[in-house]
């Protein structure tokens, strides 16, 4: 356990510079985005009112008010999140491959540590997971601040009043990242963790069996996907659409997800202990 925390800390520290830059990208681009989107609306409103000699009322009648969701639906909001997400997904691979490739083969040291190989495996998985959560945390933190900035730029009369919570519930990205209930949050991120474990196993298959391992890895990912979506497919194939009640369906999915995760972890550990080659 002790070794696990040390390794987790080590993994975080190794990525911290890039991670901090990712967070900075999110904060900076989004802040600029709020300013740009809000200002362009205010400018457009002023121009149109000048040109058409409109009152504010008339402008609102033809154009409507601006809401913060306009920013949240723009590239300014989604772009940096996509960049950070891509980087973290990429890091799922890099966190393993960097140990083998490059000038220094750190995997030697890692595998020779007097620590359980589970610690190595989980430290990597949890490092990624923690960084994803940290990113979500930062987004939760800056969203209300960005909303305040929006309120400063757009005059009261020209904006819709919506709480951050209400905005989050209707945005396609935040609905996934920060679902409205904690239960759902747990489900989303458990599924995410399952995906990380699955990819880890696929990566370790490649590391163990090289070219053949790529095929195993792809097949393994397909198998997990098939297992996870089996309730849907089986229901569709046997034409018994709603044979399971929603709660039962959810339970089945949770059990399957749990099985898939445990399999991934056990196979991953087995590969890391017995099969992986330096």
């Amino acid at each position, binding site marked *: 356990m002790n070794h696990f925390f040390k390794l987790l800390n080590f993994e975080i520290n190794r990525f911290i510079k890039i991670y901090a830059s990712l967070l900075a990208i999110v904060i900076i681009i989004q802040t600029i985005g709020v300013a740009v989107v809000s200002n362009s609306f205010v400018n457009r409103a002023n121009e149109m009112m000048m040109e058409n000699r409109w009152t504010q009322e008339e402008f609102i009648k033809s154009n409507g008010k601006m809401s913060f969701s306009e920013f949240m639906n723009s590239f300014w909001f989604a772009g940096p999140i996509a960049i950070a997400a891509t980087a973290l997904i990429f890091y799922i691979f890099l966190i393993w491959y960097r140990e083998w490739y490059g000038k220094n083969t750190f995997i030697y040291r890692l*595998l020779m540590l007097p620590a359980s190989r589970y610690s190595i495996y989980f430290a990597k998985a949890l490092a990624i997971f923690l960084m994803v959560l940290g990113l979500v945390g930062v987004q939760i933190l800056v969203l209300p601040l960005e909303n305040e900035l929006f309120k400063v730029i757009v005059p009261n009369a020209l904006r819709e009043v919506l709480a951050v919570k209400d905005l989050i519930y209707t945005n396609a990205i935040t609905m996934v990242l920060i679902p409205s209930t904690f239960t759902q949050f747990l489900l989303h991120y458990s599924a995410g963790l399952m995906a990380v474990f699955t990819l880890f196993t696929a990566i370790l298959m490649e590391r163990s069996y090289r070219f053949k391992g790529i095929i195993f890895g792809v097949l393994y990912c397909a198998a997990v996907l098939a297992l996870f979506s089996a309730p849907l497919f089986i229901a569709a194939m046997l034409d018994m659409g709603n044979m399971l009640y929603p709660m039962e369906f959810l339970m089945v999915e949770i059990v399957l997800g749990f099985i898939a995760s445990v399999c991934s972890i056990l196979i991953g550990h087995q590969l890391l202990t017995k099969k992986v080659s330096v």
Partner: protein
Amino acid sequence: MIEVKNLTKKFGRRRVLENVSFTAEKGQITCLIGINGVGKTTTLKAIMGLTPYKSGTILIDNEPISKQVYEKITFIPDAAIMPPSMTIGEALVFMQDFYSNWNNERALELLKFFNLKEEFRIAELSKGNTAKVNLLMGLAIDVDYILMDEPFSGIDIFSREQIANVFTSHLIEDRGVIITTHEINDIEHLIDKVILLDNGSVLKEFYTEEMRSQEGKSVIDVMREVYRA
């Protein structure tokens, strides 16, 4: 004692090791000799559990490799293994963090012995210094066995001398050492035991002093005989 019994490993269809068996005692320096690509490094990796093998048994003091055994044995590869962004100082902190049997005094002594500085960055080390850092990392852990992969290859003459000095010093104490080399000249008098490997098989296993007193042959004499045959 490290016991390797009938170690066989395939790489694809090619046999890398075939029925390799030998022992290496604590307190002795055992040398795996053979030209490049005969499976010396692979054997060390197999002992360390760093590469899977098809069959055979490897026991370290009668135990298979495990997380506990990693407190007893260490491996010094011939390339840098710490993250390049680290300084030597950070690497030492890392090691101290993870190894309960890390001997920091000895680490600092070695640092001085090798003329290394804590501020040096791993990425910027010369080949010789990299080998020294590796050696330092391995020797500063209080382990019973040390495996060294080609500690002398590609290193300048002065570094070579410094490293050779380590073998005769108290830094080795009475640990068991296995080193691999393809060049025996410099270390002929440093080693206790020779394992001659060729094509993934052990051709001959002997003690150097016994060979000299009984047959009056140097290691190179034996190598000539064996490889010519």
